[in-house]
């Protein structure tokens, strides 16, 4: 007979509830009603708001109405502008995905289903604040008025590319627009955001920083270092976690492990953590404003987990049909951020199906016009491309002798 000590151990490897061929069923997931989650004062003790890491803050209800304590921050014009930013981003993504398929660039990453997060968050910041984004936050640029032509030139790595063809497509950089240069080594930017925020506080400045990370890369050590430093020095930083359910083919349960939510990771550090409906522009904006106010009042960091869904592939190199049901996206219970915002504007009485169709056509025309302009400069393999001579610049502030020699050897 086996005693307890002799029972063989077994390893637990988490597995999503459904895979290709299965029928996705989100009915077991508890989604609070819009307007039902309380809004604490920004200076409330983090210990008394721990429940906010286990719920979902939502503003837009099924009828498109903005309800509850997190509603009412934005004017009708702001809301209309928000919708337009999301539509622009979606149209831009569609054109760039197609351009990649046509061989005009090597690679692309779209935001399908996640447009609300970057677009709404940007509107909660002030000029001078700095984002440390991942590759799926171009909404921050669109909503800050960054020229789309520059974005396209970056994707095409042509002569108009602000980063001179050195980076993968979508790895934008704009200091002026509060968008830190993107790294492909996941999570590295999270601790840098904390450092930037510490520097602002050291300098007695008023600016704040925002770090961005995905559900999968919260497993990196950089995430934990960022939380320790943010907690210790009460850095004026918003630590955003975009939980889009999938890290390439790996479901979020692999990175999350036994903790209930990603937001709850903040509790061990004493950092207030809020979980928000990432497909609800108004909720994202309201929570971002709340966290920004905390940071600006020197109350320290806030963790925000955006519950959303990556409706497209990880990148143009990925086919989600290989690891998740094709209908999972349709079954996703938080809906589409653009359709929800459209319903809200209609409910407000300032929008209509016709106006929306017209706006879709306008947005597409705008993107196509910019695309023509970008392609007139060049694409990855055609037209005016950055000079190979430039490849040796900016390794150091001044070109060192050994690189002068190598440049000569390369023939430039």
């Amino acid at each position, binding site marked *: 007979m086996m005693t307890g000590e002799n029972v063989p151990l077994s390893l637990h490897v988490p597995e999503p509830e459904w895979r290709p061929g299965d029928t996705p069923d989100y009915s077991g997931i508890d989604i609070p009603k819009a307007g039902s989650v309380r809004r604490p004062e920004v200076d409330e003790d983090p210990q008394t708001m721990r429940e906010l890491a286990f719920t979902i803050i939502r503003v837009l209800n099924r009828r498109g109405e903005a309800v509850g304590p997190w509603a009412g921050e934005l004017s009708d014009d702001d809301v209309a502008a928000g919708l337009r930013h999301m539509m622009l981003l979606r149209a831009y993504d569609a054109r760039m995905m197609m351009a990649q398929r046509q061989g005009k660039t090597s690679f692309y990453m779209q935001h399908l289903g996640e447009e609300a997060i970057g677009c709404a968050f940007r509107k909660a910041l002030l000029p001078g604040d700095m984002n440390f984004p991942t590759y799926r936050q171009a909404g921050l640029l669109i909503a800050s008025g960054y020229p789309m032509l520059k974005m396209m030139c970056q994707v095409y790595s042509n002569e108009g590319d602000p*980063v001179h063809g050195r*980076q993968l497509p979508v790895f934008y950089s704009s*200091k002026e627009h509060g968008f830190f240069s993107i*790294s492909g080594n996941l999570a590295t930017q999270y*601790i*840098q955001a904390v450092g930037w925020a*510490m520097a602002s506080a050291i300098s007695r400045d008023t600016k704040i920083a925002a770090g961005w990370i995905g559900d999968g890369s919260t497993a990196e050590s950089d995430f934990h270092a*960022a939380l320790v430093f943010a907690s210790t020095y009460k850095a004026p930083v918003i630590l955003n976690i975009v939980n889009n359910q999938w890290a390439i083919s790996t479901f979020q349960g692999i990175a999350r492990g036994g903790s209930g939510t990603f937001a709850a990771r903040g509790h061990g550090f004493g950092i207030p953590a809020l979980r928000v409906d990432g497909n609800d522009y108004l909720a994202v904006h309201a929570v971002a404003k709340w966290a920004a106010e905390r940071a600006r009042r020197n109350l320290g960091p806030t963790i925000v987990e955006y519950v959303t869904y990556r409706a497209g592939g990880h990148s143009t190199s990925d086919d989600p049909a290989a690891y998740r049901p094709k209908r999972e996206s349709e079954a996703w219970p938080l809906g589409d951020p653009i359709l929800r915002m459209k319903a809200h504007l209609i409910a407000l009485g300032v929008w209509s199906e016709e106006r929306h169709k017209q706006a879709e056509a306008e947005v597409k025309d705008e993107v196509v016009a910019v695309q023509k302009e970008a392609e007139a400069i060049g694409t990855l393999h055609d037209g005016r491309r950055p000079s190979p001579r430039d490849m040796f610049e*900016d390794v*150091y502030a001044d070109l060192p002798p050994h690189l002068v020699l190598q440049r000569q050897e390369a023939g430039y």
Partner: protein
Amino acid sequence: MAKMTMIEAIQGALDIAMGEDERVVVFGEDVGYFGGVFRCTAGLQKKYGRTRCFDTPISELGIVGSAIGMAAYGLKPCVEIQFADYMYPAYDQIVSEAARLRYRSAGEFTCPIVVRMPTGGGIYGAQTHSQSPEALFTHVSGLKTVVPSTPADARGLLIEAIRDPDPVIFLEPKRLYNGPFDGHHDRAVVSWTKHELGEVPDGIHVVPLGKAVTRRQGGDLTVLAYGTMVHVALAAAKETGVDAEIIDLRTLQPLDTEAIYASVRKTGRCVIVHEATLTSGFGAELAALVQRNCFYSLEAPVRRITGWDTPYPHAQEWDYFPGPTRVGSAFTETMEA
């Protein structure tokens, strides 16, 4: 001119840098109130306040990662990694981030940080307190790597490193903190304060990055060394009677190739000495450069004397350390080749 230890020279450099530029901030494990386990930051928190010199959690990744963010903001962080052996958790931040930020943003964001770390052995620190990882930095484009061998150089190079617009790895040979160590571990230690090389010029003394210095003129052979090994090579020259020309490289990147080539072309022989392991060490780079650029002047094969390709041992420290006997034999053999 005053004689002082390398620790005092480094502390003074940090003091000068913080005094002349309020963007300079200093932080790391134990560096704040206590002043660092080697005392290199002593008194700085008291003088400049807790927000310019402070203790950090034990997270090398966090120290360097936050420094990069601060540099992107516009500060000039000079951080301490308690031992170079503890650097590895920060390596991704150093290699993928600090070194590439200027390049990948086309100069929009830059990373003027200095990462100081005690390096090398000779203190019975075994494999976690003795490593010399310089080649892991010189292999990375975008970094500068500095290794001083005297208090005056430590002072002048550190001030220059902090002023530099690019990330600088500043490796401090810990066996040289208190005195010039020639490898004779069984003899009494001479303090810098009683040694001719302990002199540090008063005021703001600067040594440019990328300029080697000849520590001993000679006609027989050229020795390329840096850090502790400069003093070992000096002892070996004296003890063997070989008229070695000893070049102290001071900075490995940028490298003073002109000084190297001029000396090797004159002597026709070259011995490279470093404490780090042999294979793919910085000596391999030096040997390749000398071979390519001084081939027709060479009268003997280029020789490397280094630590063995093993982890740094504890009890066998002096069998591992390339001391004056091994270095001296290499001199003699190279003269006979």
